[in-house]
Structures are given as structure tokens and as C-alpha cells.
């Protein structure tokens, strides 16, 4: 028991020691850029979004790219535009690109998030959807600066190492269930008096004989359930690099 406590405490200690180290392991190669081709941000807004992007890039050692464009140019989809922008401008291997276009393939304004390398799993589609939902009101009302600043915070939160508080409760609940099972087995050792099931010990050896045996198929029932969506699915852009990502029109 004592050993278990010491082990737990040392693991927790280890986590505390490593957590800040992970934040500060930037190698200096990470780059960030805000490309406002549509000119929707003011000079000041552009500067502060750039500052935020570069501080995230440096802290997490990933490339952070914001692209704002009036249309998709020669591209047919936001996805292709975003992936190629990321790949052909030499970003990567790890990074997040956020594309905001005033006119997407659906004839509406659109936002697309493209992830690459380690960011594909660290910032998956469910998390992208959650961040998009948070900034949707700002986007649709045209407050692009506020929306992108909040989106940058969302990227920082999801990509940096984090374990939500609810996970601690789940961990404790699992621990309690295991504790109940183990103590249940220990408690059962104290109970040795109970009525016996059957009379197996008194079956005359070799006396069993099966005289008739028939297995008849009656009928079948079938159920079909939809497969859960794979969160880490990726696609490959024209450059041959794998990307994760999701987009919305608004």
C-alpha cells in the first residue's frame, strides 16, 4: 500500500516537472505568419494577431498560419487552398493553418482549419468544431479580428499538453471501481460458509450418457449500427503531405 502511494506521488511529481519543460522546448524553427490578402484587419489588429501567433508558435514549436483571402482563386475547395498554402510555402512538418475566405466553394464566407504532423491528432476535428462553435457568432457578425484571436487561443489550448479536470474525476471513478472489486475479493475470503450448487462431486464416474441430441436452427435477427467517425482521418494534398482538417461555411 505504502509503495503504491509513493509510486503515485512520484508519477505526479514527474508530470509537474515535465509539464513546464514541454512548454519551453521550442527549437526556434517554428514560424508564424498572418497573410491578410483580403485586407479585413486594421494595421493594429494585424500586428496583435501576428504577435499572438508567433508567441503560440514559439511556445509549442509548431507553425501557426492565418490566411485571409477574398476568394479561393483557382482552387475549387477551401481544403485544397489551405493544404497547398501550407505545403508550398514551406511550413511544417507540424503546424496549424486557419483559412478565412470571403467567398468559398459554396458561395458563402468560409473558415477552414488545416492541420499537419503532430497537430493532426493534437487538434482533431471534434476540437476544431468546438472552437469553431465558440467563434461562430463573431464570424457571422463580421468581427473577424475577435474571432481569429479567440481561434488562436483555441489552438493554443488544444495543442499544448492539457488534461481536463473531468478526466481526474473519471480516473478516480475507475480507481474506486477497481478498489471495490479488489476489496470485494478480499472480503470474500472471509466468507467460507455457503450452500453448495449442484452435486458435481457425487456424479458416478462414467455414468453420463447422451441418448438424443438435436440442434435446430430457428431464425436470425440482424442489427446494423453506424460506425463511429474516425477523428484522426487525414487526406493528402497535391504536394503529397498528409493533412487533417475541417471547414465550415457561414
Amino acid at each position: 500500500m505504502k509503495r503504491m502511494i509513493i509510486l503515485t506521488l512520484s508519477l505526479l511529481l514527474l508530470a509537474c516537472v515535465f509539464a513546464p519543460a514541454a512548454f519551453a522546448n521550442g527549437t526556434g524553427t517554428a514560424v508564424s505568419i498572418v497573410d491578410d490578402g483580403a485586407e479585413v484587419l486594421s494595421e493594429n489588429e494585424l500586428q496583435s494577431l501576428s504577435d499572438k501567433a508567433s508567441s503560440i508558435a514559439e511556445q509549442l514549436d509548431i507553425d501557426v498560419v492565418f490566411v485571409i483571402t477574398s476568394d479561393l482563386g483557382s482552387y475549387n475547395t477551401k481544403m485544397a487552398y489551405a493544404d497547398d498554402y501550407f505545403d508550398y510555402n514551406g511550413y511544417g512538418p507540424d503546424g496549424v493553418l486557419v483559412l478565412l475566405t470571403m467567398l468559398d466553394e459554396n458561395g458563402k464566407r468560409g473558415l477552414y482549419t488545416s492541420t499537419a504532423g503532430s497537430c493532426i491528432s493534437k487538434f482533431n476535428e471534434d476540437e476544431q468544431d468546438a472552437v469553431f462553435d465558440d467563434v461562430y457568432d463573431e464570424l457571422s457578425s463580421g468581427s473577424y479580428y475577435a474571432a481569429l484571436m479567440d481561434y488562436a487561443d483555441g489552438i493554443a489550448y488544444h495543442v499544448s499538453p492539457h488534461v481536463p479536470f473531468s478526466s481526474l474525476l473519471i480516473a478516480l471513478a475507475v480507481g474506486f471501481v477497481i478498489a471495490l472489486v479488489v476489496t470485494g475479493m478480499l472480503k470474500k475470503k472471509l466468507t467460507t460458509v455457503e450452500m453448495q450448487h449442484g452435486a458435481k462431486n457425487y456424479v458416478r464416474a462414467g455414468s453420463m450418457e447422451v441418448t438424443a441430441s438435436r440442434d435446430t436452427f430457428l431464425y436470425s435477427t440482424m442489427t446494423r449500427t453506424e460506425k463511429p467517425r474516425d477523428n484522426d482521418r487525414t487526406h493528402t494534398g497535391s504536394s503529397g503531405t498528409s493533412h487533417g482538417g475541417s471547414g465550415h461555411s457561414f
Partner: protein
Amino acid sequence: MALQEYKCPCCGGAITFDSSLQKMKCPYCDTEFEMEALLGYDEDLKNEGVDELEWHTDAGSAWTADEENRLRSYVCHSCGGEIIADDTTAASECPYCGNPVVMMEQLKGNLRPDYVIPFKLDKTAAKEGLKQHLTGKFLLPKVFKSENHLDDIKGIYVPVWLFNADADADIRYRATRVTVWSDARYNYTRTDHYSIYRAGHLGFDHVPVDGSTKMADDIMESVEPYDFSDAVDFQTAYLAGYLADKYDVDAEHSVTRANQRVKESTEDAFKDTVEGYATVTAENASVRLKNGESKYALYPVWILNTTYRGQKYTFAMNGQTGKFVGNLPTDNAKLWLTRLLMTAGIGGIIYAVMWLLQLM
């Protein structure tokens, strides 16, 4: 022409022949059946019967006059316990309730046992058994070993009824087989339902049932099994130095328990022959007993009574095999402390692993 009506094995509704499908189809649940399947199922249903659990309960014989002279019967007026001892053994207190006043009476009435399994293990072995029983139990209060006071150890011959029988069984099971596969979008589960029929026989020898109300049935079943090959014809000489209980539940009343155990084991044994299915449930079981006969025997048990903090604890040891049983108290403080520490420890480890996975 007799009209044959079939019930749907799936929902119980009356099913009809669908001429376009050339199959039987249930109009209620739309399940389709092959004709052969229904005929087979119907055959299984016809074999259903009722249990016939008859026994010849003519166990035991009358005591001879000589034996009656050499044996004494003691009655405890506190709990009603009745024990037999030979005239050289004096019972000083009731082995069941510990009451020191037992009245000696002349043995009368009752039956003479057919068999006895003599004691193989002595009092020292019983004490050693208790010591072993108390080790390696984490949640047993630590002070129990030092504070519990061994009130007495008694070797008792417990009266048991032994039942022999051949069981004929017809059992119908409902079984399922599950197939799982998937394509790009969906996971599929197909459950095939089967009707399984098994018939056969199985023999049982010397199924024991406790014949004494003073000896708890669950304790007596817990010290099982006894090896009947050691049993010998009853002689009063085997009682020397030990106490023997008189039966107060007769064979006719004990047979219920024997029937239950025989039926459970018969169902289990035939269920083991149903293989290759995901689930198997008995739907109908009819067990008929043939050549059922009973015998009266005495089985050796060491009874140990201890007191711990004012409460009595009874332990029993099989006098033939040394199997030791007896429920023990739980240290509740230790139980909850263990749960708390384990919850914190395991929860902490899982949480730490979650962090480590994030940091990697």
C-alpha cells in the same frame, strides 16, 4: 383433417404458411422459418415432461437391544439439541449452544445408521486448522487472532441422509450464435437462434443432506466433499470419545434438497454438451429419477466455537479431509481505508498516465 397449429418460437404468436415464400411466416413479428426447423422444434416441445423425483426412503435400521444399552442420549434443555454418546463418553456441555447442563436419557426410538465415516483427524489438527484458517486474510481484524477465545472443540458425528439415483433428463435449451462484420459505414450483428434438445442419463452416488437441524445446513455443505470410499458399516465402537447427533429431519424431508442438487448438476452436465454457442439458456428441463434410494450415515465434523467481543463464531472442520470453514468478521475501518487509498492511488496513476500521454 387435424389442424396443426404452430407457435412462433420468437414471439409466441400463431404462425402460418406463406405460399409465396414457401416458408412459415409469423404475421406478428415477420420472422420466417424453414418448415424443417419448425418440425424439429415441435419435436423438442413434445418431449417436455414433468420432473419425477421419487425416492425409496427406507434408510437406517432399528437399534439392537445391546446397542441401546451401551449408548446414552443427552438432551440440552436450552436449545433442544439431542446427542448420542457411548456410555464411556460423558457430555459435559451442549456442543451447539455451549450450555453446560445436559440431561442424560436412555436412548430410545430412532434409527441405527447404515454407515459411518470414522474420524481421521484429531483435536490437534482442528486447532492447527483454525490457525491456518486465520492466516492470509487481509481484512480480518488483527486483534481477532489474539483476542478471540476458543470456547471449546468438539468432534461430532453428524447424521446425514445419502441419496443414490439415476437421473433421466430431457432438456431443451435456447441458444444463440452471434456473427459480427462491418463494411465502410456500418457494423453488422447477426444473431442466429437455435433450439437445442438433449436427452440422456446420469448417475449420482451418496449425495449427502444434513439430517440435523442443530447443525447448520450451510456449514455442513461447506465442509463437503466427503470421500465415501472410507465409509464402513456402522459399529457403536466408532462413537467412543466422540459425540453423535441424532437426526431430527427425516429422509422424506431431506429429499427436497437432494432433488435440487441432483437437478442442478444434471442441467449443468448436459449444458456442457451444448458447445459452440454464444449464449445457452435452459428453457425446459425435466429430470426423472430411477432407482432412487437413501441411506443413513454419520459424517465426522470438528466444531470449534469461539467468542470475539461478545459475539460467537462457529468454525467447522471436515473430520476426514481437514477442509476448514467458518465466516470471519471484517475490519470495516481497514476496509474503507484500503478502498480510499486504492481509489486515490489508482486514480492518481491513471491521471498521471493521462498527463504523460499528453506530454509525449
